[in-house]
């Protein structure tokens, strides 16, 4: 699992949706996050490429034709995702100034 990198509000929203369920249809993430597919699709690609989420095909046989793609947040990524979402929520909450990187010190993994 790689480092996710830059924190963006859209990424935090997508992670929030993924944290709320076991496996989520890609378009449901678009709807629940309130962001456009042009924003959400690349974020999902990025999360998948760094090993935070896993894409899987819809196993339902009711629908014919192309299968829906579902996304699942991997267990090992959950703590980081929660820290990430928490940091974002702290950032958007009314505060007197710009949050410091030190906000993450309590959840540090590297030491």
């Amino acid at each position, binding site marked *: 699992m790689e*480092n996710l990198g830059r924190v963006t509000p859209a990424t935090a929203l997508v992670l929030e949706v993924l944290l709320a369920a076991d496996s989520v249809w890609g378009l449901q993430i678009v709807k629940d996050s309130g962001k456009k597919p042009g924003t959400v699709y690349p974020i999902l690609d990025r999360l998948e490429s760094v090993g935070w989420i896993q894409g899987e095909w819809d196993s339902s046989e009711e629908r014919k034709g192309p299968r829906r793609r579902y996304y699942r947040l991997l267990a090992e990524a959950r703590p980081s995702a929660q820290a990430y979402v928490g940091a974002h929520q702290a950032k958007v909450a009314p505060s007197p100034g710009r949050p410091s*990187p030190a906000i993450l010190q309590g959840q540090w993994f*590297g030491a």
Partner: protein
Amino acid sequence: MVRRMKLTEAILALCVALTPDRLREVREEQWKADLRDGPQLGISASSLLVGAACSSVTARFYEVLDRASKLLSHIKEGESVKLGLGMAGVAVILLGGAAIGIQATSSNAETSPQARTPVHDRPIGGYEGWWNSTPASGDTAGLPQEIVAVNTRTGAVVDAFNRATKSTNISDVNYIPAPDPSWPANSIIIIDTASGKVVEDFLVDERGVPLDENGRPLDAITG
């Protein structure tokens, strides 16, 4: 109606073609399913096509970035000796030309963007290396445009550098690193803020002083 369907198919085919090979098959089926089922959620086909285009372009961009990063890494680690020697040769020629024509005035210019340990006589938080240096040629292609240095002992950002503004103020860099268990412990890591990837790391002691290959702090070596 038929014309619109053909246009949709053509745009989708373009997006698929733009997508890196390894993802192409998956994305094609996924986007087709999304175009079929999107209206159920009130998501328009045009919005989905824009999404597919963004996804394919972004994936392609990261693929190129990844290749460039690997190439740079190989040069740095000496695995690609031929390429490294070739680049060193070009650097020597450029430096020779520069030495004949002009007298160097910049004290911080380097011969080539090679990896090296930080110098010992700068205060903690002032780490130097290829990531925040500029080659004598002035060509910064392939070098990070903005970095932050994080001490993994504390999780604190201890240094920053923006190539465009030449700023080294941490407060000027709008980047919050997300902690990652794969980061090396007891180290300073250099993160390229554009990709979020760790581009360099080195061990430090509890004061943040870099350690040499024998595990001794650099300031202990020089007394």
